């Protein structure tokens, strides 16, 4: 490198920055044909075939309209049954988009048949059996579970499925309100 070529070096450096680009964009992640089965906390695709991907702004508009069922699919493991007596167990508080329903664990790649039925039954109940009712599904940012769950809702036959990839991370970042939510209990054998 030649000391006198300062301008040239800076120009080259700028070019290098432009070529190398920033962090991987959503377009870099292809939409798989099947559900995602592992590495759930990793960059997600920009599309969901058959569904509509929404930004925080769009999700907020939909929320204000008030006609869409909001579903949170953040996973939650049950408190183990065999803990030694006196063990302190703490469930982290979940703060959700107001009015939404928290159906944990329905975003895994494969569901146990009982869990799959539980998801179907709750959606059926919450839409009063109307498959045309719009449903919006979210979780956290960069989490495949909401993508999986939205894909699943499409396969169940729901006609208007929104996938909100930024989830509560994007929602709270924009300062929108949240409220504490308890999960629906998985009560199947």
């Amino acid at each position, binding site marked *: 490198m030649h000391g006198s070529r300062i301008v040239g070096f800076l120009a080259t450096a700028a070019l290098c920055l432009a070529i190398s680009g920033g962090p991987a964009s959503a377009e870099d992640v292809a939409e798989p044909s099947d559900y995602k*089965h592992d590495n759930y*906390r990793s960059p997600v695709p920009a599309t969901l075939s058959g569904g509509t991907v929404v930004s925080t702004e769009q999700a907020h508009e939909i929320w204000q309209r008030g006609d869409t069922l909001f579903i949170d699919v953040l*996973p939650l*493991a*049950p*408190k*183990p*049954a*065999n*803990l*030694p007596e006196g*063990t*302190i*167990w*703490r*469930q*982290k508080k979940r703060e959700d988009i107001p009015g939404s329903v928290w159906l944990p664990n329905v975003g*895994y790649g*494969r*569901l*146990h048949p009982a*869990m799959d039925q539980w998801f179907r039954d709750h959606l059926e109940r919450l839409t009063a059996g109307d498959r045309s009712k719009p449903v919006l599904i979210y979780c956290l940012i960069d989490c495949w579970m909401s993508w999986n769950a939205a894909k699943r809702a499409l396969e169940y036959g729901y006609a208007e499925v929104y996938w909100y990839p930024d989830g509560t991370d994007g929602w709270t970042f924009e300062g929108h309100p949240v409220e504490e939510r308890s999960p629906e209990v998985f009560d199947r054998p």
Partner: protein
Amino acid sequence: MRNCALSGLIFAAAALLAPATSVAGEPVWEEIKPAIFGDRAIHRSNPANIVLTTPYRSEDDREVPVAVNARFNDGRTVRAVTIVIDENPMPVSVVFRFDQPRNSIAVATRMRFNGPSPIRTIVEASDGKLYMSEGYVKTSGLGACASPPVNNPKEALASLGEMELTHPGAGTSRGQNISSLKQTARLAIRHPNLTGLQMDQITLQHIPARYISNIEVRQGEERLFTIESGIALSENPEIEFDYSLNGSGTLSVYARDTDGTEFRHDFPIGTGS
């Protein structure tokens, strides 16, 4: 796989100290503290020169190296050391209780962090007073407690409870030798330490919890310490501890998991293992 994750932690002079978190605004600690310590006062002064060593950023959330060193210079001894990871579902991660009066202790292990979290150690002195030091670990967000076990379950069962005890640094110029009274040992136990939060990819249900909950280490007839541990101890837990030779020539380890399964092993010491 892990370069140095645990080895020599106790010796490490240039340890990475996590920055102290602010005293105010620790809502989780305020919530769980009464359940662990009731209304006992916990002092933030540091007469025991407590050093809690963790990386600020974890390389692998399932195996974060954590070390605690403490030394009283005022005649008091260390009765117990508790480690709490606020954001883990089982925040009380491990409790060491020392049977022999010692003015200093050094322990280290590898722990699971479920997410970014404050970590704190509370040292109980021989007069019952409690002193706390804290740090913070930024994780990659794996949700380590729910991460599937690394090892094959059949293999894990076959080697369940197998133990190894080494004296890191023995034989090196920096390390210990047989004639030195103070020794550092590393105990490794094969156990999946199932957290109960892991999803089985075959059955599609959560794998029941089964983890080592109690460990006792004796030197000859003398019990050195007991450990109560939870799901924060990593798969195939390793624990480093220091102790003073008492001439008996044997370290005996007893461990028990939440299924009630017991494991025992005697290790001759002073033979350069």
